């Protein structure tokens, strides 16, 4: 079995695990946003890697790439586009939350912030 043929999937899973590791170890909410964004990029990589096809072009036709010529899967690309928007919005929301936390407590270390636990 050609190991390289499965490398893209492995890379995607690896990035996801590293993103989660960043969340587990982070001492700064902004680092957590970046770690979450890294974890999210793993989904883009996985989707696009699954839809890729050798010997095919982009799913955008033009006189040099006429209609009907082989193309990689356009659906995963559309899904990834949606996913990128989701990622950006969640980042913006958590950053706004971090700014508010900092305003209240002058601290953005998640270790020292916990909802009053009873």
């Amino acid at each position: 079995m050609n190991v390289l043929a499965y490398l893209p999937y492995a890379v995607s899973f690896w990035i996801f695990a590293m993103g989660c590791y960043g969340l587990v170890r982070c001492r700064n909410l902004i680092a957590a946003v970046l770690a979450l964004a890294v974890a999210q990029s793993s989904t883009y990589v996985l989707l696009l890697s699954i839809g890729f096809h050798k010997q095919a072009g982009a799913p955008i036709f033009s006189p040099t790439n006429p209609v009907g010529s082989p193309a990689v899967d356009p659906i995963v690309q559309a899904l990834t586009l949606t996913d990128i928007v989701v990622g950006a919005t969640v980042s913006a929301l958590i950053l706004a939350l971090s700014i508010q936390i900092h305003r209240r407590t002058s601290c953005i270390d998640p270790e020292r912030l916990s909802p009053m636990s009873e």
Partner: protein
Amino acid sequence: MSTTFVRLVPAFSVAVPLMAAAVLAPFTRCCTRAVSSVVTTVACGLVLGMTLFLLFYSSAHGTIVHWMGGWEPSHGTAIGISFAVDPMGAGLAAFVALLVLCATVYTWIAVDLVGTLLHVLLLAFLGAMCGYALTGDLFNMFVWFELMTAAAIALTSHKIEEASSISGAINLAVTNSLGGFLVLFGIALLYGKTDALNLAQIGEALAKQPIDAALTASFALIVCGYFVKGAVAPFHFWLDDAHAVAPTPVCLLFSGIMVQLALYGVARIYFGAFAASFAPHVCAIGGLFLGVGIATALLGALMAYAQRHLKRLLAFSTVSHSGMFVAAIGLFQPGAIAATALFIAAHGLVKSALFVCAGTYLNRFRSLDECVLGGRGREAPANSAMFLIGGVALAACPPFAISVAKAAFDRAMDARGLAAVSLLMALVSAIDAGAVLRSGLHITFGIGNAQDTGISPREEEPETIGDHLESTPWTMLAVPAALLALALWLGVDERIWHGIERAGAVFVDRHSYVGAVLGGHSLPLPDASGPKQTAVSLTLNLSATALAIAIALAGLFRHRIPRQLKVASRPFAFLRNLHSGKFADYVAYLMVGVAAYGCWLVVALPR
């Protein structure tokens, strides 16, 4: 009415609230509270009307299918996005609209709206939940799921005066985002195996393939991802942090329906797609669901009993009910699905009523702490009475609908030879309701010693603008009264259970689903009817109620209980330490959960 128009109604019931949200958004500064409330209430009412219409129409004429953009399947391949509305989906959407309507009525007087932004977010939340309940496309489901998450994050952080509030929102954001990634991983793997996103299409493709590891992993990832939002152990940790800080109407929606929608998603995806491959191995999957369901139910009930912050207490009770739902879904059998559906509706009504009552305490007496409130409930007698009635209803006391659902659940368990699970779940219900009744009795009559947890009581800001309320406004009494009355009606009216049983039979039938979506022919609903309450389940429910009252009294008079019997309190410390409120811990638990679920499924299913 023409069929074309009927087929458009599902899409409209998603578009209307979203458009209403967009209409309100620009007028944050200049729109008065009254105008904003009227627009939101009217939009919710419209959606409720449309979804109720869908419920009755699909019950009478079978599944309603609409292809967005007119992209019908070509040569048997689904191209566009389909909405496939069966009675179960339509009923759930109607229930969503009802609860959002209640939440909106609550915001008429209470809760700072921050201009109109709170209503904007509520409407977006409503649109997302409707889309999620009605869609027949795996990725479309994910999109609405993410819209729910985005709205939920913003709604939770509404009360930002306290750092703890934002921290609850961040825990929600991080864990639910990770859950979303897991779902997307699952979708990607499934897409790689089948090249399809339509549920019916995926099912058809899977029917032609053997089970392999990618398929199993995809199922495991989707289940884990949805269980994050569904608050199933060990993914549930965000829930109580979020509930402790969210405004009351938002708590009502989280506990009443959002958590349950995630579980509905798992069942929908299983029966729409995976059942084609996994049906012969349903016991292996059911074992997992039953195991985590029981664990979640016990954990939630014990944690609920250990709380004295009312919203946290109710949140943990939701966790424990989530466990019961998962255990019931794990039977993968029409009767159990119908029982779960009624259970979800009944629990949602009762739990929402309890949350509104708790919100009234907060607004009247500036506290959600059982000890601080002790005895003050007498000043708000109607509210306290409803809180206690809600507690009794939660214990599956007949004739409230939870008892009917529980009876059906017991029958389904009994048919599989799992009567012991019924007993266990009755115990869980009793502990849950015991916790609610304990606080209710203490608040109303001031009897007994409240839990001595060594934490100084905290004063909280009431949600109303300005000062706390001198008397309870009628909307805050009407909402829980209506909800409890509905819960009673669902239990009393014979036709309800009859209809739900038929809806359950349609829900689990993959072939009729495929026929409706890809073949374009909807079958009318089958006829089904079982006995409602048996003597055994009646006894079980009544004894659960009695046990709940006993547990409540035991909690109140624990200083009189002999020391030897107090061993039960030992596990609490350990469990409490697990709920640390730090998302880093929660991410670690999440990974443990994914590994455990994945191992179980990979080992139990053929490779």
